[in-house]
């Protein structure tokens, strides 16, 4: 009886771990100066090779920058004194489910479409505090002054 409960617990927990392990959505590929990743666990300096997850907040300091490669090959790079929130990101081509929602608080950024932007552009939303950008397979630059 006890064993079966343990097995049940393991069976319930394993998918969680598996999910936590595979649900990263992108990787930091370049950094210069101060780059910070803020998530529920707290804030950590961002290094090349670090994995990113949905709802992560990315910040750069003065004379700093960072470049991210998402799993669908979307390229997002940030200039100095910039802050963005990766509010939502889903890349599940096998199920045909895509979503990418970025909220930009301040600074400068460059966005280059990946597979999501090409296959499902209507699911990409890039928000600044005063507008929403909708894209059709393209590259654009944004600046938000506060």
């Amino acid at each position: 009886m006890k064993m079966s409960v343990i097995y049940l617990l393991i069976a319930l927990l394993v998918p969680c771990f598996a999910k936590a392990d595979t649900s990263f959505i992108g990787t930091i590929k370049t950094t210069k100066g101060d780059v910070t990743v803020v998530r529920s666990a707290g804030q950590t300096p961002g290094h090349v090779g670090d994995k990113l997850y949905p709802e992560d907040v990315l910040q750069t300091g003065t004379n700093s920058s960072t470049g991210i490669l998402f799993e669908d090959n979307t390229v997002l790079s940030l200039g100095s004194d910039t802050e963005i929130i990766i509010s939502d990101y889903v890349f599940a081509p096998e199920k045909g489910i895509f979503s990418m929602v970025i909220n930009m608080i301040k600074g400068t950024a460059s966005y280059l479409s990946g597979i999501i932007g090409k296959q499902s552009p209507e699911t990409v939303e890039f928000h600044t505090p005063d507008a929403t950008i909708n894209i059709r397979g393209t590259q654009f630059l944004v600046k938000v002054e506060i």
Partner: protein
Amino acid sequence: MKKTILLFISSALLLAVSACGTKSTVVLVPDPDGRTGKLTVTNQGGTQTLDQANQSVQIKNKKTAPGTPEKLSHDEIAAVFSDALAAQPLPPAKFTLYFLPDSNLLTQESKKLLPQIIQTILKRKSSDIVISGHTDTVGKKAYNYRLSLDRAKTMFNILVDNGAVPDDIRVTSHGEGNLLIKTPDDVAEPKNRRVEVLIR
């Protein structure tokens, strides 16, 4: 729970920031292939469409419609965005190498690609390499799965022998399940006997 609080704080910050009047600029630029796409910028005041290279639009606040599009010069763009643009990682590089029939030996032509592949990995310091092995449709499915795995592992060994880090490489085997050139069963097709190396 913490995540929710964080999201709430972030959203609150976003609201606070937008309340005290920000100003945004959006610039449509050609992508690395030289193509210019299209985008729309929308807020409570209206919508503006950009569809020409280096066209930009300014947004004063969320209630005022985005302004009239204006073309920016390369210098104007560089002055504001040079650090963000310089931080862009390279898009992934993809190589396809072909094999002799029913073999894990590369064709002479494909062998010539190896130095370029290794150079790409080392130059980018890539820690994210995917090797996928494939076959044509000659032979049984199960046999072809093992053959394509053998091809992928051969490529893995070549890359590791030349300085790639084993932990940075993912190896997948597709057998005859992912044809580059669609053919019926039992068709010899050189372009299907391949490995693809994706360097991210």
